[in-house]
Structures are given as structure tokens and as C-alpha cells.
């Protein structure tokens, strides 16, 4: 990167930004279509198949409908925050992809010289920390929208969302520390380069962290089984009950964008990025074919994960709120913390990924069983349900007086 001329850097960055932002938007459309078709397939229905071939134009029809609908602003809302909130949720979803590598390198001739352009908008020193920082801001859109709506159901959704996201950010951040220790860098590009052979793929070495990370990503994107913030059966629409037309669509788009970015990050951190067994040399060769192939590999892996998101949504029921909190604090957090200690110690002692992988799995099993035993012993000796009920039914805050 350092030896590219400034003009080339500028032009290539602008092109990359345009391509990636458009791919995200088109990806959102694709996801809306896929969600409806796959859910239909899982439930043995047809799904939307009238607009265009296989219903592919359905998202466009949906989009036009959202744009043409009346943009309703209810009387009792806090106007500034109400209008700001959908924008606040969309911005973090869009700018996280700035540091994610979408492929290896492609060659470009410029001023008669050959240069290699990395398929990534910015390779910054703090890489993964940037992603953690930006994703932690996604919760504001939900919470502020919920509060500004001045509606009990929205408000409950917002409270649930904020508590959930703060709780799951911890395991999300801690589960990648082991990966960072073995990659010896925060740069996403170097994390991928460290996984250049299949046995070095991080999900093998850090299997428990991998599971923790995926679960935390599900919680951060507010997807089922963690979609308590918008639980239809209890909260009407949750935090976006009062939103209509394009503002609602922005919440909708942000959710799918979070999913796409989350899947790419999982692929980059744990599933070897643009590497595929047998194609390592070609992908890193710096030729046009290699560069495009690397992009396709990332695309395919990401698509698989997006399918997994939909698959889980239509297979699992929703968690109860206390189950959600117990899972986050009493299972995921201890597993993530132990994996840090175990990875560090075993790596220093043995310097072998095999042993790190084995000890990670063993320690995760031990920790989970110990914690669940302790929890079940405690809950037998005490009745705590009454306390919990007080918070819900007792002196509830009056939302309508502001």
C-alpha cells in the first residue's frame, strides 16, 4: 500500500467505496428476497414468485412501496430524535465495511507501471477494534428510536435491546482475543494472511470462541432467537412500532446490513477469509484471476453464513429474557474468558495450534459444566422469581409524562 502513488490510491478508493456500498445495498435486496423464499421453502410454501422471475423483483416492488407511502410522524413523538434515530442506525451499518477485506489483490497498470491494489477500502492499524467500536454504536438507533416514539411497547423494546446489546458486546469482543494473539495483529488483512493453510483456519484452533462469536453476532444483529426487542407477539412491533414508510425501511435495511457485515467478519476472522484448500497459491498470486477468485471465495462463504442466519431464524423459537441474560453472562462470557487464558498459556508452552485447539475445547466443556452446575445448585436453594416480577408489574415508570 505504501508505494502506491496518491492519485491511484484516491481513484481506486473511490471505486472500491462505490462498489462495496452498492454491493451492500443490493445485498440487502437479495437478502430480503432470500429470507422470504427460504422461509417459504423451510415451511413448504412457495413464497413470493410473481414479480419477475422467481420473484426476484419483489424487493424492488417493496422498496417502491416504502418510498411512495405517506411519511407519518405521530403527534406525541420527540421530533428531532425520532427523525434522527433511523439515520443513526444506518450509518454504523454502512461504515463498518470500510476496513473489511473483500479479497486479496488485483494488478493494475498505472503510468506504465504495475501496481497491486488490495481489495479493501482502508487497512488501518486498529482494524478489528474499529469494527467493534462502530458496531457498539448500532444500539443507539434502536434505543433512541424507541424512546422518541413515546410508546410503551417501543420503550420496552428499546430497554430490552440496550441491555441485550451491552451484555453481548463483552463476549463478542473477548472471543476474538485468542485469534488476535495467534495472528499477532489487529489488521484484518494480516489476520487473513495468518490463515493461509486450512489447518491454520481460526475456527479449528478456537472452536469455542468461534461459537461464542457467532452467537454474539446473532444477538448484536437482533435476529431470532435474540429478537426480543421486536417480539411481535408481546410488543406489537417493538422499537419500530411507531415508524412507517421509509423510516421503517431504514431500520429494516440496517438489520440486513448488520447481518451482511457480521457474516463477512466471521468469514475473515474464523473461516480463512479468501483462502480455500487447494487454491491458496492462485489466490495470492496477484493476478487478475487470483484477485477475482479470492473475491468470489469470500462472497460464497459469506452467502453461506447469510443462509445460516435465515435458517436459524426459521428453525429456533425465541429466548425468554432471563434465559438470554443467563446465556450471555453465565455461559458465553466464562467460555470467552477461559479461552483467552488457555490460548495464551498453551501457545507459550507448546507453540502448537493442535494443542491450543484441543485445550480450548476441553476447557470450554469443563467451564460450561461447572457453571451450569453452580447455577442450578443456586436456583434450587433460592426463590428469586418474586423479585423479578416486582420490576415488571410494580411501580412502572409513566412514559407519557415528559
Amino acid at each position, binding site marked *: 500500500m*505504501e*508505494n502506491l502513488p496518491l492519485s491511484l490510491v484516491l481513484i481506486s478508493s473511490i471505486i472500491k467505496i462505490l462498489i462495496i456500498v452498492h454491493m451492500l445495498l443490493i445485498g440487502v435486496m437479495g437478502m430480503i428476497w432470500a429470507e422470504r423464499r427460504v422461509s417459504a421453502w423451510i415451511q413448504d410454501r412457495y413464497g413470493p414468485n410473481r414479480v419477475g422471475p422467481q420473484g426476484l423483483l419483489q424487493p424492488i416492488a417493496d422498496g417502491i412501496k416504502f418510498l411512495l407511502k405517506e411519511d407519518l410522524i405521530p403527534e406525541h413523538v*420527540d421530533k*428531532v*430524535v425520532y427523525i434522527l434515530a433511523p439515520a443513526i442506525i444506518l450509518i454504523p451499518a454502512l461504515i463498518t465495511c470500510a476496513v473489511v477485506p473483500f479479497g486479496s489483490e488485483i494488478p493494475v497498470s498505472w503510468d506504465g507501471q504495475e501496481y497491486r491494489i488490495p481489495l479493501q477500502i482502508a487497512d*488501518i*492499524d*486498529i482494524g478489528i*477494534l*474499529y469494527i*467493534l*467500536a*462502530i458496531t*457498539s*454504536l448500532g*444500539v*443507539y438507533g434502536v*434505543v*433512541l428510536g424507541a*424512546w422518541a416514539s413515546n410508546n410503551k411497547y417501543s*420503550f420496552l423494546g*428499546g*430497554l430490552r435491546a*440496550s*441491555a441485550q*446489546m*451491552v451484555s453481548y*458486546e463483552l463476549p463478542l*469482543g473477548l472471543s476474538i482475543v485468542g485469534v488476535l494473539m495467534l495472528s499477532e495483529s*489487529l489488521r484484518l488483512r494480516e489476520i487473513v494472511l495468518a490463515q493461509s493453510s486450512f489447518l491454520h483456519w481460526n475456527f479449528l484452533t478456537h472452536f469455542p470462541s468461534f461459537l461464542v462469536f457467532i452467537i454474539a453476532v446473532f444477538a448484536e444483529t437482533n435476529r431470532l432467537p435474540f429478537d426480543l426487542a421486536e417480539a411481535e407477539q408481546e410488543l406489537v412491533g417493538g422499537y419500530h412500532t411507531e415508524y412507517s414508510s421509509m423510516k421503517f425501511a431504514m431500520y429494516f435495511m440496517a438489520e440486513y446490513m448488520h447481518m451482511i457485515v457480521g457474516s463477512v467478519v466471521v468469514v475473515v476472522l474464523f473461516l480463512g477469509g479468501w483462502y480455500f484448500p487447494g487454491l491458496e497459491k492462485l489466490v495470492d498470486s496477484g493476478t487478475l484471476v487470483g484477485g477475482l477468485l479470492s473475491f468470489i471465495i469470500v462472497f460464497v462463504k459469506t452467502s453461506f453464513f447469510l443462509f445460516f442466519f435465515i435458517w436459524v431464524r426459521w428453525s429456533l423459537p425465541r429466548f425468554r429474557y432471563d434465559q438470554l441474560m443467563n446465556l450471555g453472562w453465565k455461559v458465553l462470557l466464562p467460555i470467552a474468558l477461559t479461552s483467552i487464558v488457555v490460548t495464551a498459556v498453551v501457545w507459550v508452552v507448546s507453540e502448537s495450534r493442535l494443542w491450543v485447539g484441543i485445550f480450548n475445547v476441553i476447557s470450554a466443556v469443563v467451564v460450561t459444566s461447572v457453571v451450569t452446575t453452580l447455577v442450578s445448585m443456586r436456583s434450587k436453594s*433460592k426463590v*428469586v422469581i418474586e*423479585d423479578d416480577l416486582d420490576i415488571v408489574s410494580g411501580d412502572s*415508570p*409513566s*412514559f407519557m*409524562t*415528559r
Partner: protein
Amino acid sequence: MVLLVIFGLVAICSAICVVAFKNPIHSALALILTFFSQAGLFIALGAHFVAAVQVIVYAGAIMVLFLFVIMLLNLGSLQDTARQNISAIKIFVLVLAVLLAIEGITVARYVDQNGGVIKKQSTDVIIQRLKDDFKMSDEDIKHSVEELYGKGTSVSNLTSVQVTGLVHGEMGKTERIGTLLFSKFVLPFEVTSFILIAALIGVISIVNREPQEAA
């Protein structure tokens, strides 16, 4: 420099908004903006790691909890309560502002007279400090210099401005911060984490009290 001024102005304006807004939620939003412009200031100074940590810890975690608590307590607009003792507060603010201004001027003059910490020392001393504090080998330094000032630049013929740039660039890097934390500053680092753990245990023991006491 332009970035510093922009982010500084935004930080000051939003900080004033924090105390000026009547609605606590709006104040909290302004506070978030203040934290962001602070992160921007850190980035303008080349301290990317600190900026990221600022956003993760303050904007991402602490302010979410602030919002959570404000919403849960359902604080209304502050109207009558805040109007009391206004003259006493005014005097206090005035004195505080004067003190802060004096402090700022003193610090700026000190830095100006000493020409920063780095300029005064010779190139060799600075390079030696890079090796000692950051545990950089000759190879590392050569690599960093070439990355900053183009291929073929050697360490020996750098100007003093270039050396300053090199040190600033290195100080922002996450790797150097990690090295410093676990070598030179390992004791303060560990003590801080012990204090945090003590606080954590304290909170847990308070929350975990037997329920029959409350009844």
C-alpha cells in the same frame, strides 16, 4: 491542524449543549457527540488506538448505560430545580473558568519553551529511546522509516522534523502501546487492573446479599 480545530470546536459546542439542554436525553446525546469529537481529536493526533478505545468504552458502553438509566428513571425536563442557587453557580463557574484558562496558558507556554519533548534531543538519542522503550530492532526502525518517507531513506540522514514524525507515527501504533504496557508500564497497568477487579468483587458482593435481609 484543520481537523484539530474542527473537532475541538464541535467538542466545545456539544459540551456546552450537555449543560444547556433541558431534556436529559438530549443532554446525553450531546455528551455522546462530545466523546466522538474527542475521538476525532485523538485521531488527528495520530493516536488511533486511544480513539478506538474511547469510542468502545465511553460512546459504546458507558453512554448506553447512561441512556438506559435515564430512560428507566424517566427523568422529566429539569425546570424549577435547576433554577435554584443560580448566582452561586455562576460565581463558581467563573472562578473555575479562570483557573482552567491559567492552567492551559501555563502548560502551553511550558511546551512552547521546551520545544516539545522531542525536538530538544538529538536524533541518536531519540532512535536509542525507540529501541529501548518500544523494543524495536534496527530492522523495524528501517522498515518504519521507509514506510513513512519512501524507499531508500536511511535513518542517519533524517531531519529533526522527520524524526519527530517517525516518533509520533510509532507512538500511535497498537503494537508499540502493547509493548510499553507490558514492559515499562507493567506495574501501573497491573495495579489498575487489580483496582478494577476489587471494584467488580465489591459490586458482586453487594448485589449478592441474602434476600431475607431485604424482607
